[in-house]
């Protein structure tokens, strides 16, 4: 974890309001676990809080990484205007990321993503695939326009897509695939997306094998301000909880109260 400037290699709008930003810099050497995140200072002095964005993929050889984000408000909109050669002040990599060590070759991993929760799963899929683990992905998007990275994930295994309006894949929630996995029994489930989706995932799958990536509003991003906490399940202490930025963003479903 350090603070450093990274250089924009390229930026592409890969779906409606969804941007893929490729960054280069020595910080990449510190990146490892899938779904760690970067805490990004928005250029200009107007916005003072950094923006947390997950690392979507890492290319250690080229010292490059990719982040994928949706333009939500002012900060991401400003970042989306950057072009090759621009610099970004980055704090990272932060957080713990998805664990994969507990899985062995030939085992099954189910990836579940909703909207902008999909990209953080990409580096995970890549690493799982490289390890010989079978990957099935279930992704939900709002509509066809916002679907992205389907092909990229298809390189690692089957991809099931649902859209809210049925304009692509099945119509409705991605949760409908949970009962139609055709005998694919996951040894681990990895999910990232809106809170409602995470709650559904936690209810459906074995909470000791289910890994959820949380989002909380963050200030410091490094554990000092206690702004981003999440309650521990069965905590006996009167004060204890997890800081999403340090102990998370990924937790086993059995550890936390959603």
């Amino acid at each position, binding site marked *: 974890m350090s603070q450093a400037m990274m250089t924009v290699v390229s930026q592409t709008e890969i779906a409606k309001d969804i941007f893929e930003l490729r960054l280069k810099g020595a910080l990449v050497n510190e990146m490892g676990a899938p779904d760690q995140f970067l805490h990004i200072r928005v250029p200009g002095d107007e916005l003072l809080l950094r923006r947390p964005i997950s690392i979507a993929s890492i290319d250690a050889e080229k010292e490059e990484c990719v982040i994928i984000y949706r333009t939500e408000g002012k900060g991401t909109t400003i970042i989306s205007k950057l072009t090759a050669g621009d610099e970004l002040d980055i704090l990272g990599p932060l957080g713990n990321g998805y664990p994969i060590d507990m899985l062995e070759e030939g085992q099954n991993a189910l990836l579940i993503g909703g909207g902008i929760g999909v990209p953080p799963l990409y580096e995970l899929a890549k690493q799982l695939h490289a390890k010989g683990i079978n990957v099935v992905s279930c992704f939900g998007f709002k509509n066809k326009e916002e679907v992205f990275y389907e092909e990229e994930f298809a390189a690692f295994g089957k991809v099931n897509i649902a859209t809210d309006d049925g304009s692509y894949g099945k119509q409705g929630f991605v949760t409908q695939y949970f009962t139609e996995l055709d005998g694919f029994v996951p040894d681990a489930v990895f999910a990232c997306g809106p809170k409602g989706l995470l709650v559904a995932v936690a209810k459906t799958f074995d909470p000791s094998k289910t890994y959820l990536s949380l989002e909380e509003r963050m200030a410091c991003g*490094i554990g000092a301000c206690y702004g981003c906490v999440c309650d521990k399940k069965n905590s006996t202490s009167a004060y204890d909880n997890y800081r999403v930025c340090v102990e998370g963003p990924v937790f086993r479903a059995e550890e936390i109260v959603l």
Partner: protein
Amino acid sequence: MNRLAVSLPGLELKNPIIPASGCFGFGEDYGKFYDLSLLGAIMTKATTLEPRRGNPTPRLAETPSGMLNAIGLQNPGVEVVVAQKHTALEKYDVPLISNVAGNTFDDYYQVCKAVSQSPNVKAIELNISCPNVHKGGLQFGTDPEMAAAVTRAAKEGATVPVYVKLSPNVTDIVEIAKAVEAAGADGISMINTLVGMRIDLHTRKPIIANKTGGLSGPAIKPVAIRMIYQVARAVNIPIIGMGGVYTVDDVLEMFMAGASAVGVGMANFTDPFVCPKLIEQLPQRMDELGINSLQELINEVREGILNER
């Protein structure tokens, strides 16, 4: 001579830059970025008698040139703080200013007594922006008599100097400052956050779960400067100034208003290295402005104030 050194009751600081309470935890996290011995002092996270879980989330929201927070004094309680947090900081050559909070006079008395035991705690910062359970939740810091009473309780417990941290959410901050000075405060720290709110246009409800939060950052700097200026003209004890400090110019503006040291809060979130950077950049800016040493600047400002009287 160290141009940046400043001297306050209990605090012989190598420089005036102090991470503000609640914005720096107990130092361990920022200790991964730089050597904490560089700092003038550290104002630790609020410590209460019992452990506290704090408020539900969201606890944070961004605002123009500022932010809201409603952490709710989450901390492991004074026992753990003294046994683990203070000792973990002993490896650094940096004095601690222990931020103490509570809901009763006895809370303050006991926590002040306990934190005074840590050898590296050189002063206490009394957070009086806390609701008084005996007075229907009214903050200790908004009434001069209550502020004086809680100061006395703290002074009884403490064996190190006590700096009372004033709330800006009052009609007349000078009145409160005078009251705590009369009650024996060794110094004043100001300002705490302004009470603010943001509403989510989709849910039509406050973004922060606690509804209101404390506003900090550059947005509040003009209020901080005004209050420091007024209080410096009304009391004879030193002031640790804070509220929106991001640059060396902000640091020096606080001194010119009447501060003798400076707390840095929200800026740590924007730039984790802001404190060592300020320390490094101060001498050059002092050269440009013809300031030999900060202690000299403090004395000159003080003289100016006395001449006004």
